[in-house]
């Protein structure tokens, strides 16, 4: 139902609404209003991340453990935490990362980068092999393609779904093995695999469109509702 116009008196709502309209103006063509909104977004995002990063990571994990007295700046009645000198390690690694800003010392930044990449890769490989490889193989072939029904016999719908999953996986793999450089498909099985991939990409694209429409609906709800008070 449409309500009489009741424009918001909230400054934040006005800022949000005007920035939204500036971004939407790009749909017509590139223009200074869009550029302004884009730059504001990038600037505010960077500042927000910096502030959040400082107060949730740098302050409690590095500064306060190294200088417990600093916690009194935020709250004078907080009991002083114990000094933890192990925080020197991340502090030094962080400073080494900043050495990229000085060309003469930039090589130092390789050490913390190597530490982060090495740790993450080593940690992730175990999890990925387990969750995205072993468990997914198990999910594809684990129960076979004949799924028993609760009351005896076979569950036709589930069995068909299992068959499509298994055969789709196999044909998809065949496509990658039986395709020449340039994308020439060499076998009928690979052609079916190509079809499976196209259906998958189509479904993904459909999902992406649906998501974008949801965001459009969300913005228009805020414009018509929170800003203009029409909804």
């Amino acid at each position, binding site marked *: 139902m449409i309500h009489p116009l009741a424009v918001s008196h909230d400054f934040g709502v006005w800022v949000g609404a005007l920035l939204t309209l500036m971004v939407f103006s790009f749909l017509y063509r590139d223009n200074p209003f869009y550029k302004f909104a884009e730059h504001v977004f990038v600037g505010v995002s960077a500042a927000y991340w910096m502030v959040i990063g400082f107060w949730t990571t740098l302050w409690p994990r590095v500064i306060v453990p190294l200088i417990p007295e600093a916690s009194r700046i935020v709250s004078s009645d907080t009991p002083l935490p114990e000094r933890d000198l192990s925080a020197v390690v991340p502090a030094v690694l962080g400073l080494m990362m900043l050495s990229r800003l000085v060309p003469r010392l930039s090589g130092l930044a390789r050490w913390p980068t190597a530490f982060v990449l090495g740790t993450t890769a080593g*940690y992730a490989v175990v*999890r990925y092999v*387990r969750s995205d490889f072993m468990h997914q193989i198990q999910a594809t072939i684990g129960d076979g393609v004949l799924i028993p029904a609760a009351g005896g016999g076979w569950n036709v719908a589930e069995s068909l779904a299992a068959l499509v999953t298994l055969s789709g996986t196999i044909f998809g793999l065949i496509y990658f093995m039986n395709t020449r450089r340039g994308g020439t498909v060499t076998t009928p099985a690979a052609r079916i695999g190509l079809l499976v991939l196209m259906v998958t990409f189509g479904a993904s694209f459909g999902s992406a469109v649906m*998501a974008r429409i*949801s965001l*459009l609906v969300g913005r228009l709800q805020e414009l*018509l509702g929170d800003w203009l008070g029409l909804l």
Partner: protein
Amino acid sequence: MSGSRFEALQSIDRRWIFLALAVAVIAALVVQPVFRDSPGELVVPIFAAIEALAPGTPVLISLDYSPSSAPELEPMAAALTRHCLIRGLPVTYLSLWPTGNHMAGRIVERVIGPEYPDAVEGREWVTLGFQAGGELLVHALLDSLGSRFAADVRGIPLIEIPALAQVTGLNDYGIVVSLSAGTPGLKEWVLYGGDVGAFPLAGGCTGVGAPQFFPYYPRQLLGLMAALKGAAEYEAALNDDYADRVPRVMQATRGMGPQTVAHLVIVAFILLGNAGLFIGERRKRGRR
């Protein structure tokens, strides 16, 4: 219609399509058609799992999204919050995204405050907020929340919060739900949380992310709310069981009307473009 007009159907200026879409969505928002959903196969297990929890069992909701994806994911957070508060399940909000504190604040401001005025922060819900670390944070929380969160967002130590009285680590939660718009998010919860820990893990995701998560169901994910439709299905389940305790039309159900109309407009343009292609081709062949 001449052949060139049919060809023109294949190259409509995209701005006319944007305009048609905007008009259709605005019209649908004003008229507010309601298309009632029914809970789907992937949503029912989440609803059933929360229904099966004994009152007082803690539930963790990880708000791994930002304002840009809130229209899709916030209705899920709102519906889950309503369900938990109705059932007497204390909710813990945390986030792998720096914007998570603000997202939790919106749920409190828009759902808990107006609909559950008797709910008390610290007893019915607690916001732990954002912590850096992504997958490493999830792994650390398995054994102990206290290892990464000294206090909630108000600065109250975890040990003094009644909503966390039964909680040491993630395994003490009756269910963990990650509402995820990207990385870090649901994938990290599956890989470093659900597949390692002993707690039921469910998820909610944007439409863009949904194809990535479907393969995890049902072995690695208890259930999945995919996009606004998934949220609308959860709202339908709530309406079925608690019609007198939740709003009749909630956020996602309200959004599905304009969404459906927008899809119809897109389908119409696809049909128009294809009709132009086929009829134009046929006329060209006829002239030869």
